[in-house]
């Protein structure tokens, strides 16, 4: 069972990495195209800034999930590192429950925003805002699942972290 979940997760991670990569590349192209067209053609692409911002939102939420898989989010482990192993496991379980609670709040809020905004078109590109908000509950849901998996890993003694700080 766990094996299947892990395989699915790994495949999804790889797929999403490509998605965020493409999003960032498109952001570069769109914003640069606007600079060029405004400077040389005296013609500003009204939708470019808006689309790029929406891509940024998607990139951040998907990227947050990706960074969460390997515990890359900024945090402070100087205190818990000094705890004995059993206490550390218990603390991790409690804090993971708190994280799930926080993520659930954001997921619910994001869902409400999404449902309320499908008829609301964005100013320039006229995209229904609900689709942009949709990434909030999706990413939070994925992170909740990830937290549950992490808690399980804590008790069987498997580490999820990889590289160190990144910015």
């Amino acid at each position, binding site marked *: 069972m766990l094996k299947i979940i892990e395989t699915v997760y790994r495949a999804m991670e790889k797929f999403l990495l490509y998605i965020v990569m493409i999003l*960032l590349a498109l952001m*570069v192209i769109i914003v640069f195209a606007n600079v060029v067209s405004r400077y040389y053609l005296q013609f500003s692409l009204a939708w470019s800034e808006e689309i790029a*911002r929406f891509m940024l939102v998607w990139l951040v939420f998907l*990227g947050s999930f990706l960074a969460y898989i390997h515990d*890359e989010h*900024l*945090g402070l482990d100087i205190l*818990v590192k000094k705890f004995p192993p059993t206490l550390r496991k218990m603390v991790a379980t409690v804090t993971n429950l708190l994280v799930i*609670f926080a993520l659930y709040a954001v997921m619910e809020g994001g869902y409400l925003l999404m449902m309320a905004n499908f008829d609301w078109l964005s100013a320039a590109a006229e995209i229904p805002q609900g689709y942009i908000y949709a990434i909030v509950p999706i990413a939070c849901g994925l992170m909740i699942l990830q937290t549950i998996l992490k808690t399980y890993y804590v008790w069987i003694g498997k580490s999820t972290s990889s590289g160190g700080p990144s*910015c």
Partner: protein
Amino acid sequence: MLITFMTSLFSFIFLNIPIAFSLILTTIVLMVYSNELSSANIASSIYRGIDNFPLMAIPFFMLAGEIMNVGGMSRRIVNFANALVGHVTGGLGYVAVVASMLFAGVSGSAVADTSAIGSILLPIMKKEGYDTPKSTALISASGCIGPIIPPSIPMIIFGVIGGVSIVKLFLGGIVPGLLIGVGLMIVWYFHAKKRGYSTGKHFSKSEFYKAFKGAAWAMMLPIIILGGIVTGVYTPTEAAVVAVVYAFLVGMFVYRELKFSQLPAIFMHASKATAIVLLVCGAATAAGYMITTAQIPQLLLKALDQLSGGNVILAMFWINILLIIVGCVMDLTPALLILAPMLLPVAEGYGLDPVYFGVVMCVNLCIGLITPPVGTVLYVGCGLSKISIGEITKPLLPFITVMFVVLLLITYIPSLITFIPNLVK
């Protein structure tokens, strides 16, 4: 309220809950406390904190730095710095500082600066018989100039959350960054003299010209970035995207060192790094909303007034002390995101210029990048030269002292910061 906020935030953080989630939890606590819990409000303020065009400069500057690195620009910058200052006693130390300052003109991140310059120079310094912990300390300290000399990721963040002109903040960082660079070189001078380090290679006229020509493409970038922003041709975000395209074209077609196959990894890494920073930014926006409604800055101002008797000089002293303590244990970005919404209104209450205050805050928190126990840049430096944090602490002290001296100077001579930004409209 202030107590509730502080205790809940710091207990969440010290229990190793990722800072973004700690901020969301604190927001929830404050909402429950003031009886206005609404999940839609939390989600929409997080969303608002991310959906922001100026913040897009962050992934772009990250990309530009990394593409420069892989595309061979960093190596040429180091080579040119070597031609400039390498031929004196302990020359490679000055090369490190000068190269870091040049690289800082394109990159806005201390980690990028340190790893780019360190990975090239540390092996050479070791081979030349330089003291490894001392060299690592120097490279880490000069890496901290990265976010002080424009462009600067922390200053973008400060500008966005404080509603302060990013261009002015950028310009305000120029003098402090140069001062730190000069200070580090002075400290290195005495160290190199004492140790009697070898003199570096002397470049002949034609070699110097060759090094300059190689680096010229790279050195155009700071001019393109800053020039374009100051003259108003484009915004900082657009300048960042121009830098990405420029670094890509030069790496691909001029230096021919960048390969298409290297791009996916660069983009994936930059996306993740961006997500990490901006998730904290979104969460801090949600917390900031509660900080404002709970009137925490006013409470803080009152507490500070009692401590300093309403004296600005003393107030800035206490603010700096607070920032140093927080900077020791917390990363630059989250510390900035948490403290800026609380402290900026306080500074404005004292009638201080927000540009001045933002630069002081960024410089102060940059010192935190190389102070143990938590110093991101320190980890990078130590990782590169494979030494422990314990070994590097003592050699770092004189460099940290230099940075404190500069911090003191800019805190009490504000015109050092505000002179250049006041030249532009």
